């Protein structure tokens, strides 16, 4: 029963936390109606982070879980960020030092030919 003792803990008011989560959901839905891009980004992703934190802390009980579990989760998130940092330049940029995307090259060469033909006329 030692494990039982280790698992038993004070429970927060889950219904209250759920109500706050629903309030945040309403704000994230209402945000885009203001039509301000920055506000939409904050109400969409800022609130998503807050909601995820609240669920992880209160429902998954990460706040009272062994510390190494938190480090394990954070390490995985760092891996995702590393993946993003490593690959996003290839995806989001059309050219860089000594490289250019073939599709862009074709498109630009098409434009160049078109311009040349236009000038020739």
């Amino acid at each position: 029963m030692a494990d039982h003792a280790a698992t038993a803990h004070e429970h927060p008011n889950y219904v209250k936390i759920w109500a706050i989560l629903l309030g945040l959901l309403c704000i994230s839905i209402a945000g885009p109606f203001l039509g301000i891009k920055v506000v939409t980004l904050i109400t969409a992703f800022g609130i998503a982070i807050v909601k995820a934190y609240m669920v992880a802390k209160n429902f998954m009980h990460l706040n009272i879980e062994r510390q190494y579990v938190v480090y394990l989760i954070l390490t995985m998130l760092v891996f995702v960020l590393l993946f993003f940092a490593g690959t996003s330049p290839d995806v989001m940029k059309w050219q860089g030092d000594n490289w250019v995307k073939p599709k862009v090259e074709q498109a630009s060469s098409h434009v160049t030919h078109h311009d040349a033909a236009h000038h020739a006329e």
Partner: protein
Amino acid sequence: MRPIANTRSSAGMPTGRLAVWWVVASEIVIFGGLLASYVMQRLAHPEWTTQTAVTNVWIGGFNTFVLLTSSLSAVLAHQAAEHGDGKKAAKLLYYTCGGAVTFICVKAFEWTTEIGHGYTLSSNTFWSFYYTAAGIHALHVIGGGIIMLFVAADAKKNLELHRVELIGIYWHFVDIVWIFLFPLLYIAK
């Protein structure tokens, strides 16, 4: 009464819980990689606005409500299990399963409408991401719901009550994934 946690433990916690955290850690990389790929593609393709405008924020919002509520019943089931009330835990887990069924039914309705309008997996890269991310998530909802039925059946007989917490951790993670999918696919148009 059977013990709430199993007697085997490693690394300072019951092995079952440790295993679930490993599953969650692995899933973070799977979903994280997928969502990170979507974000970088979305930022590189502002012309996707015409496609993202099609998704229905009210349907996505309703499904978020359903999953948040199912998470509430899952954590209340965990609380009941800790108090040794297997019947109450089972009842609350069945409510969570009801949430899973509702979520999938809404998703089926949504996808049927979208596919009916010609937006399929191969329409363009946005829809490929949309169906892949939401589809993998939906599979997790279905899988979690089925496992929960088994856990609830045991809990009803006051057996293996520690599993109520384990399926709860998994379910909350599925909820968190949707918390990020919702703004990405439905709000940030």
